[in-house]
């Protein structure tokens, strides 16, 4: 055991020697550094984006933009800006300031006429710029983000600091600012930084030793390759993407009931670990179901957009909330993949960016053909059977269909069993009672006095109908009729009450419950759009009531005359009614012809007021939809991943950059539009984007490796006085990133260093310890937080059950979102509530005790100094500064005295009569609350 300490003494010495190097950077005079003198004033050409657009966006566009067009004048599009206005004048006449009304109006002496109206006049400098711009021909330029990235010259610069081409961009800008970068971080800091960044977990002592001991030039690269290949890599990046996907284990809204969608989370982990190229990664998520013969994994990937909320509240209009989900899909897609604030365009043209009102609905048209409809069952779902019995039935049915030629093949029947679409949902039906129509929500009824119908069902000669229903008697016949309630009878089935008997705890005896049954029966094949009526025949006064969940027309299994058919038909029936455990995952599924929906513009964004009909399409400023791209989600994915798309690659490299450096090259990673921030290093952004697409072929691991192999990433994160003045937020990157761990990493690190972390991957979400009374959600009787047992208590944070209305409290304290909608960027805060979590949350005390135990077990003979140094080593994977050690020793002594004076507190605190454990748990609690522990330097 002493040997560990011996190694640590070595580490400590090595560490200290690096630690106390003073960075010899002189403060640089920065006088007048930030006085902005527009180039144009000095006689150069006015640049629209650099010089003019900021004036327009700040001073003009509120009245002359996408929302208001006062006087018929808008500065959103060039053609609008140059057009004749309501007054008959042209605001801008290129080359002629005399004819340009704009120049007259901004210079006008009468405040009634001067622009901006009711505002301060423009600055002289601004007037000079606008004048010069018009004089020079009023050259309009698209906002930089809509111009595809252009090949960039790598700055021709050499310096021993440089490790790869990224550094040349960074250093050349630093040179311009007369700043020097920081030297490389010490190895301890560096390994902890890169381990947390790539895998979300801190390095182990062994990993640290191996790295410190590896004197080869490629030591760091080896580490990076190891981390990229680690299974934890996928977990760390899935956790990031789950914010984009607004992943949650519940449906949201009032009752916020559980949703089984963890298969999608598992898919994400595997996709990152398998390094699925980013273009495929998004294609699968947007349109996996549209690929030829999609696999389960490809279907599950589409759950990305099934993470929208589903409103089960009684009385809500399913179509309204389907629309809300649809709008969310548009907003999320544009925000995550295009850095564009499409939500503005729901109600009117974009106030600042060149996107027209109808563009929103053209985008929506891509998503509007998915079969989901805000139904409580979340249909369409993919069923994955688990029990051998079910699997065998499925395989027998498939096998039968494959060996008996008929109209439909075995793929059809497998889909019918596992996806069961296209369903006719209750809200498609009108229930007629005394001739008053009532619309169903979760179910609809057919009784002695109520019939139900649905209009214009696109029938395609299906010869069977399937429905899921329950009946409270077994009397009468349920009839399917065409066109009206007395219309042609095309099929019927005797009503059957199915029951189960179960012991009831409250009345303490067996009770009989009516249960649902899925039945399929023959109908006369019809082709074309017809109205379907469901009628109950045979009134016996028993008041039979059928409650129906859904209806589906389908084709019969082949080989009805063959021997063995009866068994197959039984398998077919039983598998639909199997109560065995299975996994269901909501997926996207394109509606078939005949079922497809029309998409209309919503006037002022309201789903109730339909404007003109639109087809799938994209805004004109972007790359065009080429003829090879179909007008469906797959085409949309192809358009997004087309190398000509100006934004996908930029937004993506920027997102990964932000994850490592804390700030994106474009800080507003969610908004690349003209109201977002301009890139700090535009050339680097474009260079990285082009590299990502063309060199790396969308390879995420290559991109991440490129980023972490740079000297920019590896430099020390020490703040220097000169930087504190000129670059307090580290936009120029003269120092390395120093960031707080994410909510997930805070938990994972605590579990890892305490030795409690379970390495188990995948599976249903788990419930680690949480205070009582967090889940007080209405109408959620059966849904309780039941703390998981065994290792499931200690899983990584991303496996924690995420309920939207009551997320796990400590995650929320550390700035995790509730995931109701996509939140592309978390803003770190630093609050007392975070301190209370890491000081007092029982989960964090358990980890502190775990760390204490681990320390004591590793070196039972050690003195307090050694023990504390070892504990710190387990936590930080490095040696402890002498002065800090003294502070901890002082606390150690105080704590010993405390427990000596109050021995009863020992057992209260630890559950055991072990003073040393109690004292060391306090020490661990302190070490795990240090700034350096919750930060990565």
């Amino acid at each position, binding site marked *: 055991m002493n040997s560990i300490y011996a190694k640590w003494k070595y580490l400590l010495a090595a560490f200290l020697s690096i630690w106390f190097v003073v960075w010899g950077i002189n403060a640089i005079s920065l006088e007048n550094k930030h006085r902005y003198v527009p180039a144009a004033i000095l006689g150069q050409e006015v640049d629209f984006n650099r010089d003019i657009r900021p004036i327009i966006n*700040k001073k003009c566009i509120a009245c002359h933009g996408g929302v208001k067009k006062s006087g018929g004048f808008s500065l959103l599009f060039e053609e609008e800006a140059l057009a004749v206005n309501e007054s008959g004048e042209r605001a801008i006449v290129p080359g002629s300031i005399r004819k340009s009304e704009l120049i007259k109006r901004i210079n006008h002496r009468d405040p009634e006429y001067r622009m901006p109206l009711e505002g301060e006049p423009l600055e002289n400098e601004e007037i000079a710029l606008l004048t010069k711009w018009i004089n020079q021909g009023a050259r309009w330029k698209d906002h930089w983000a809509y111009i595809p990235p252009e090949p960039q010259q790598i700055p021709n610069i050499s310096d021993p600091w440089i490790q790869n081409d990224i550094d040349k961009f960074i250093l050349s800008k630093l040179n311009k600012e007369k700043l020097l970068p920081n030297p490389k971080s010490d190895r301890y800091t560096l390994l902890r930084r890169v381990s947390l960044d790539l895998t979300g977990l801190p390095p182990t002592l062994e990993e640290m030793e191996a790295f410190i001991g590896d004197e080869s030039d490629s030591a760091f690269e080896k580490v990076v390759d190891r981390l990229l290949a680690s299974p934890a890599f996928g977990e760390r990046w899935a956790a990031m993407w789950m914010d984009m996907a607004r992943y949650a284990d519940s449906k949201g*809204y*009032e009752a916020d009931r559980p949703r089984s969608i963890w298969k999608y989370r598992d898919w994400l982990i595997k996709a990152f670990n398998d390094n699925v190229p980013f273009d495929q990664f998004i294609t699968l998520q947007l349109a996996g179901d549209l690929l030829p013969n999609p696999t389960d994994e490809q279907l599950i990937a589409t759950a990305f957009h099934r993470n929208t909320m589903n409103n089960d509240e*009684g*009385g809500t209009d399913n179509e309204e909330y389907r629309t809300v989900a649809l709008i969310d899909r548009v907003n999320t897609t544009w925000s995550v993949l295009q850095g564009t*604030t499409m939500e*503005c365009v729901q109600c009117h043209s974009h*106030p*600042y*960016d060149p996107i027209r009102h109808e563009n929103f609905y053209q985008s929506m048209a891509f998503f509007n053909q998915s079969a989901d409809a805000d139904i409580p069952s979340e249909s369409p779902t993919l069923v994955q059977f688990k029990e051998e019995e079910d699997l065998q039935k499925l395989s027998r049915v498939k096998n039968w269909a494959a060996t008996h030629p008929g109209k439909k093949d075995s793929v059809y029947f497998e889909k019918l069993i596992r996806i069961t679409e296209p369903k006719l949902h209750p809200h498609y039906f009108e229930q007629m009672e*005394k001739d008053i129509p*009532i619309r169903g929500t979760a179910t609809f009824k057919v009784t002695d006095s109520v019939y139900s119908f649905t209009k214009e069902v696109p029938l395609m000669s299906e010869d069977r109908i399937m429905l899921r229903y329950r009946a409270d008697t077994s009397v009468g016949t349920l009839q399917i009729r065409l066109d009206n309630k007395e219309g042609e009878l095309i099929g019927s089935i005797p009503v059957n009450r199915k029951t189960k008997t179960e012991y009831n705890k409250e009345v303490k005896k067996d009770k009989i419950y009516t249960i649902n049954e899925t039945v399929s029966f023959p109908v006369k094949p019809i082709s074309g759009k017809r109205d379907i009526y469901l009628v109950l025949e045979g009134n016996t006064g028993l008041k039979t009531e059928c409650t129906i969940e859904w209806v589906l027309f389908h084709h019969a299994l082949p080989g009805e005359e063959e021997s063995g058919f009866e068994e197959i038909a039984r398998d077919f029936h039983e598998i639909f009614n199997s109560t065995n455990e299975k996994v269901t995952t909501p997926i996207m599924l394109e509606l078939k012809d005949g079922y497809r929906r029309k998409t209309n513009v919503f006037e002022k964004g309201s789903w109730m007021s339909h404007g003109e009909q639109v087809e799938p399409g994209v805004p004109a400023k972007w790359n065009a939809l080429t003829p090879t791209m179909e007008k469906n989600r797959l085409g949309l994915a192809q358009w997004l991943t087309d190398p000509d798309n100006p934004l996908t690659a930029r937004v993506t490299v920027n997102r990964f950059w932000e994850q490592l450096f804390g700030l994106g090259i474009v800080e507003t990673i*969610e908004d690349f*539009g003209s109201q977002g921030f301009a890139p700090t290093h535009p050339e680097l952004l474009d260079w990285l984007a082009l590299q990502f697409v063309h060199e790396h072929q969308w390879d995420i691991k290559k991109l991440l490796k490129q980023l972490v192999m740079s000297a920019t990433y590896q430099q020390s*994160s*020490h703040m*220097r006085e000169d930087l*504190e003045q000129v670059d*307090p937020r580290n936009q120029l990157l003269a120092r390395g990133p*120093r960031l*707080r761990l994410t909510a997930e990493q805070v938990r994972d690190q605590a579990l890892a260093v305490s030795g409690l972390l379970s390495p188990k991957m995948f599976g249903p979400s788990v419930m680690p310890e949480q*205070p009582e*009374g967090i889940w*007080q*959600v*209405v109408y959620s009787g059966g849904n309780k937080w039941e703390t998981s047992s065994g290792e499931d208590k200690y899983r990584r944070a991303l496996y924690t059950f995420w309920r939207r*209305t*009551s997320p796990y*409290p400590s995650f*929320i*304290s550390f700035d995790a979102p*509730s995931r*109701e909608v996509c939140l592309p960027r978390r*803003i770190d805060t*630093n*609050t007392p*509530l975070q*301190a*209370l979590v890491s*000081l*007092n949350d029982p989960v964090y005390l358990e980890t502190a005790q775990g760390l204490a135990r681990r320390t004591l077990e590793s070196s039972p003979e050690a003195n307090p100094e050694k023990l504390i140094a070892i504990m710190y080593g387990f936590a930080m994977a490095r040696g402890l*500064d002498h002065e*800090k050690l003294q*502070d901890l020793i*002082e*606390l150690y002594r105080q704590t010993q005295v*405390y427990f000596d004076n*109050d021995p*009863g*507190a*020992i057992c209260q605190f630890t559950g055991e009569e072990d003073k040393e454990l*109690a004292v060391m748990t*306090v020490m661990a609690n*302190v070490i795990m*609350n*240090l*700034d*350096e522990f919750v*930060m990565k*330097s």
Partner: protein
Amino acid sequence: MNLQQELQYRTLQRETRRHFLKQCAQGLGSIALGSLIGCGASSTQEEQASAVMESLAAKMPHFAPTAKRIIYLHMAGAPSQLELFDYKPELGKLDGKDCPPSLLEGKKFAFIQGVPKMLGPQAEFKPRGESGMMISDWLPHFSTIADDVSLIRTMHTDEFNHAPAQLLLQTGGPRLGRPSMGSWVTYGLGSDNENLPGFMVLVSGGNTPDAGKSVWGSGFLPSVYQGVQCRSEGDPVLFVSNPEGMSRDLRRNTIDAINKINDKEYQEMGDPEILTRISQYEMSFRMQTSVPEVMDIKDEPAYIHDMYGTEPGKTSFANNCLLARRLVEQGVRFVQLFDWGWDTHGVSEGDSIEGGLKNKCSQVDRPMTALIKDLKQRGLLDETLVVWGGEFGRTPMQENRGGKVWPFKGRDHHTEAFPIWMAGGGVKGGYTHGETDEIGYYGIKDKVHVHDLQATIMHLLGMDHEKFTYFAQGRDFRLTDVAGKVVHKIIA
């Protein structure tokens, strides 16, 4: 110099530097509002980011406020106006008759189907106080303070389901993702107590509101502005208690050690976030006493318990009313109470008008009255605005869910007319605002939309709701969206 002094000194030094770094005048420490006054239409993202740091210091409003604090009593589920505040004798005459089709055309209801029957008022009303305000017999205590409140009878909303309507009322938008009123107010005005959060939430009735914790969420505002829920069982604020076996002295020692080491880390790394962390650990230590202290009502005198009907240790609306008074006394800016259980559809006795509603009235009547009287006797009512109401009203028709006649009397959700009352904070006493038609279905005079209520509340707090914005998702947002008119008639 000891650590504390040094910390203060360094923080000051840093603030000064920041001050010079920023070109924008910031008024009296106000970022959010300073930028409104000094720097054009909206605060930039950079300013907002750094504002987080100084987020909770007290700030100056736009103009002199009449209310400095607010207690909002939200009756989640929506109480019936027809039994409590909107006296409709004509409706009584129609009791049991078919609802005229004109009231049903083009309407969407949550549960009413086909043609329902009209349902007369189930409670008696009398004029109260000098003002003669009509108030139900079911609120005998409240009837004694009629002259202290302004009653708006003509509130209306756009949403007829609980969750969206609660969100519209509390966040200005019916969908999730907007900051709640309390977040806006603490963002704009900060907190007057550095030992307690500026926005605190108390829940009774057994459930959180239908829309969940989003009704006190911070939306796109930084998370420091979200409401902090105080619980009456377990820790009043999550994790505020030390673990068993750890005394306050030992906790002090550990925080001293943490802060000493963090200070060394600061000397080494120079990252000002470390100083913030040191001060946040100090604040958390102070909260460990200030929160349980303010939440402990045991030491209140007997006459106070009697007045409110409080029982220490219980979760109740009464306890929460008393806590609300204690919190505003300590300078908490926004105290939000939610009381669940007002959704009286008449499907069971518990949610019927004659059972559930009457019972809820008896639960809240005494404590809400006591709250007003208590604030008044302490001289706090003048500066504290108290608001009471649900997220919408109830139909004058009897609910007939599933097309059936139910054995209990209930009313469905109704958006067109519902009451809110306000007291203190600069509103008139004994004033009734607005008039509804003969059956309490539509407002016919002085209608007040939910956004108007929000505009009025902001106005009383000294804020111009049209100028108080936050830049997010590509545009400026405000609590009242694109609407809202201040109801000047209720202001004294």
